[in-house]
């Protein structure tokens, strides 16, 4: 008994004060930091989306000027991708992976601290470009050269540095996850017993390590083109602007799977819990995730069908791209089969997960349509594309993140969220996001290009409806902030098990999870 007391004194709880957060090496603290950072960035990026939808509310230039509009579309994309979705996923990984595999912490806790604390500085630098002379980056989140090199404002160099720093952070986070998964699993936790969330993140981490250096490479080439007289992307100096797109999309296509694979993982945790039935086809889910990750490297040029690729290249990239529909369909079928003949209840996390399956499926089908090269000649760079990637990233990845927060927040805080408010948040978001993005399919097909601040009159009605949906969806996420704060402050106390049907090591510890869990490794049968 006395040894146990001494032991407890050494394993004291969280230190207090600001320095707790600055110096922490605790995976739960760092997970919390990541999640709050992502939430703040979601609101900043969301505010920019509101500016975009306000300007597009009706034809004509009302709210902002065209240059600032381009800055908004650019910064909205960059902030949502690098500031909101990716850090949120790393936040989940930090909180959940050690608890799910029975590890005391991440394998490399000091590096973990550093990989988070780079983020606020990179994010601040990125946002600070808005206040520089000449304005922030205004060349789209895909920053195609030469618009982003020869023709870009001076602040672009700060953008480049910010992207480098975000890349460092992601690579370190990915190394940490791989090291943790490979070395820190509890005895008996074989790879094929790992929860699917751990599997999807494990695969995602390899994608990150493979492609973030490519992104760093492309922005470095931009940097030298801009400042040191090279001509990678300048035809006048023997370079090729399309080379930029090849390098960018070699990063960019795996990047979209970096955002969606952990979402698959979250949904694959939530659905079995609330269906009270094991995940259907666990091993095929693992193989499908790995197949999607592999295919992501060899299909990237489907973003470039209109750049003047040789027809043989177009055919290859078309065939390879539509192949991705197979493993993706397998995933949707498996989720459906998991729900089939289950004993389902629809608490808030389950609503988000089922919403994800429906809306991600729609986004997946439009993705298949765009993979068909000749029709993509029409769809490319229109609002049809905008609708597609918001169905997979906002109604997909963001829905999975929101579902994941509701699913695990009782474990994080020890308090149940308010079920009624959670359901209101879901239905409010699910309806408004469809009002927001579904009409964008129509205007895209009818001929409205993306990234334009003003449009001809035939697109007016649907744009107005879309904007109304946008404002409602934005407001719903402020409501979410209220729900989260209310849950942290108090609420019905959660049991360790939390959900009747939940299985896995994280549910064997108390709620809130103690500051240190699994100091002694559990035995997994």
């Amino acid at each position: 008994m006395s040894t146990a007391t001494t032991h407890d004194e050494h394993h004291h709880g969280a230190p207090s004060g600001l320095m707790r957060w600055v110096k922490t090496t605790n995976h739960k603290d760092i997970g919390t930091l990541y999640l709050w950072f992502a939430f703040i960035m979601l609101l900043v990026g969301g505010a920019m989306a509101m500016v975009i939808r306000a300007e597009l509310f009706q034809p004509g230039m009302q709210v902002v000027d065209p240059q600032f509009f381009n800055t908004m579309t650019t910064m909205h994309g960059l902030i949502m991708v690098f500031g909101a979705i990716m850090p949120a996923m790393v936040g989940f990984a930090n909180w959940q992976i050690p608890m799910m595999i029975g590890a005391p912490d991440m394998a490399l806790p000091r590096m973990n601290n550093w990989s988070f604390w780079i983020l606020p500085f990179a994010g601040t630098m990125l946002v600070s470009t808005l206040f520089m002379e000449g304005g922030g980056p205004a060349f789209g989140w895909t920053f195609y050269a030469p618009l982003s090199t020869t023709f870009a404002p001076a602040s672009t160099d700060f953008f480049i540095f910010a992207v480098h720093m975000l890349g460092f952070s992601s690579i370190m986070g990915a190394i940490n996850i791989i090291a943790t998964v490979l070395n820190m699993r509890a005895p008996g936790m074989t790879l094929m017993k790992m929860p699917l969330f751990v599997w999807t993140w494990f695969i995602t981490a390899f994608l990150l390590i493979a492609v973030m250096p490519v992104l760093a490479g492309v922005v470095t080439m931009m940097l030298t083109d801009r400042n040191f007289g090279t001509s990678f992307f300048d035809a006048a100096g023997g370079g090729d602007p399309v080379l930029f797109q090849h390098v960018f999309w070699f990063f960019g296509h795996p990047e979209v799977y970096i955002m969606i694979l952990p979402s698959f993982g979250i949904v694959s945790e939530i659905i079995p819990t609330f269906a009270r039935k094991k995940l259907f086809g666990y091993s095929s889910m693992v193989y499908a995730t790995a197949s999607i990750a592999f295919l992501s490297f060899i299909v990237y040029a489907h973003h470039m069908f209109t750049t003047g690729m040789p027809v043989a290249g177009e055919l290859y990239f078309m065939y390879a791209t539509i192949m991705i529909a197979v493993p993706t369909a397998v995933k949707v079928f498996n989720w459906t089969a998991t729900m089939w003949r289950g004993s389902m209840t629809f608490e808030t996390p389950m609503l988000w997960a089922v919403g994800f399956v429906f809306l991600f499926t729609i986004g997946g089908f439009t993705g298949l349509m765009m993979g068909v090269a000749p029709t993509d000649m029409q769809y490319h760079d229109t609002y049809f594309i905008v609708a597609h990637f918001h169905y997979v990233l906002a109604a997909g990845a963001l829905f999975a993140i929101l579902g994941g927060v509701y699913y695990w927040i009782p474990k994080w805080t020890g308090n149940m969220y308010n079920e009624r408010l959670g359901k209101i948040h879901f239905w409010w978001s699910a309806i408004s996001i469809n009002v927001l993005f579904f009409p964008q399919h129509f205007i895209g097909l009818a001929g409205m290009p993306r990234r334009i601040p003003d449009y001809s009159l035939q697109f007016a009605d649907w744009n107005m409806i879309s904007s109304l949906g946008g404002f409602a969806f934005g407001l719903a996420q402020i409501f979410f902030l209220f729900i989260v704060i209310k849950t942290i402050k108090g609420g019905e106390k959660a049991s360790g098990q939390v959900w009747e049907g939940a299985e896995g090591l994280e549910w064997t510890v108390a709620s809130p999870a103690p500051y240190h869990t699994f100091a002694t490794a559990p035995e997994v049968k």
Partner: protein
Amino acid sequence: MFANTLRRALCSLWGALVLLGAGNAFAGYSDTINLVKGVTDISHKVYDLHMLVFWICVVVCVGVFAVLIYSIIYHRKSKGAKPATFHESTTVEIIWTTIPFLVLVVMAVPATTTLLALEDTRDADMSIQVTGYQWKWKYDYLDEDISFFSVLTTPREQIEGSEPKSENYLVEVDNPIVVPINKKIRFLITSNDVIHSWWVPALGWKQDAVPGFINDGWTELSEPGTYRGKCAELCGKDHGFMPIVLIAKTEEDYAAWVAEQKGAAEADAAAATQTWSMDDLIARGESVYNTNCAACHQANGAGIPGVFPAITGSAIATGDMAGHVDIVMNGKAGTAMQAFGAQLNDVDLAAVITFQRNALGNSAGDMVQPSDIAAAR
């Protein structure tokens, strides 16, 4: 204005729902909710392929959603459902891996034939070079020695809302591209600055305009008509304001148009040999300025600080004439300032330079004649 548009929007939302309910698949809305069917053989092929893939997606989607919804309704704990224990079946996995694969093969066949037809630019009857500029298009008729720029004509007042918007708001230009029907026309597409994308939906394709490289595309129209499109690749501030208007004419009308263009070119050449008064130059210069310069340097000459320099009070526009002529004609490397010597004729260059020096708050008091510009070339 606002209330009206809102009412129209709500009406159309309601209209769409009612039509859906009636099973009348968006009749009357088909031009604003579905892919443009277009007017060429290729655009029809693309449209048919789009509809084929769309219906395949709809069928699969309805199937999956039906199972999901059935399950959501009947397999609930509150309905007393007891969870089954099955959680894998290799047979099922193989079946639902193979079926999507076969469906993809079915789609890939027409997709391949359409793509090959779309990319086959051989045996064209005539060629037109299309060059993207920030923010306008230039058309060079390679067989006819005709060349002109095509710039948005929607007045600033309509964009800013002080005048009502006309029917062709943002899809109207000063000089449309004119083509004959029943000829296979090859477009050679390139750019002078950043990447643009030339897109007329009715033709069924778009093609990026990449600086330093030439892409191609083709069309063959069968009916005279006016077809409108837009730049589809983000190309800077006025990306939304560089539309395309393509007019297809019968062969006789096209021949008449060609003759007219050549006559106009001769008249321009004659004007360049005259000596112009300062007032005439300033008057002409204002319209040249508004078409070519105002997008960056702004209509009042104030520019956009940090992005586009001001003309008003600038060292160049108030200083040495030779320096002013040089930067307008040759541009400034590494910036968005284009070499207008290649874009404008001698009269327009003389006019716009004189305008910049004696208007927009400047009063240099000197002027330059078209003949001086010719000498400077």
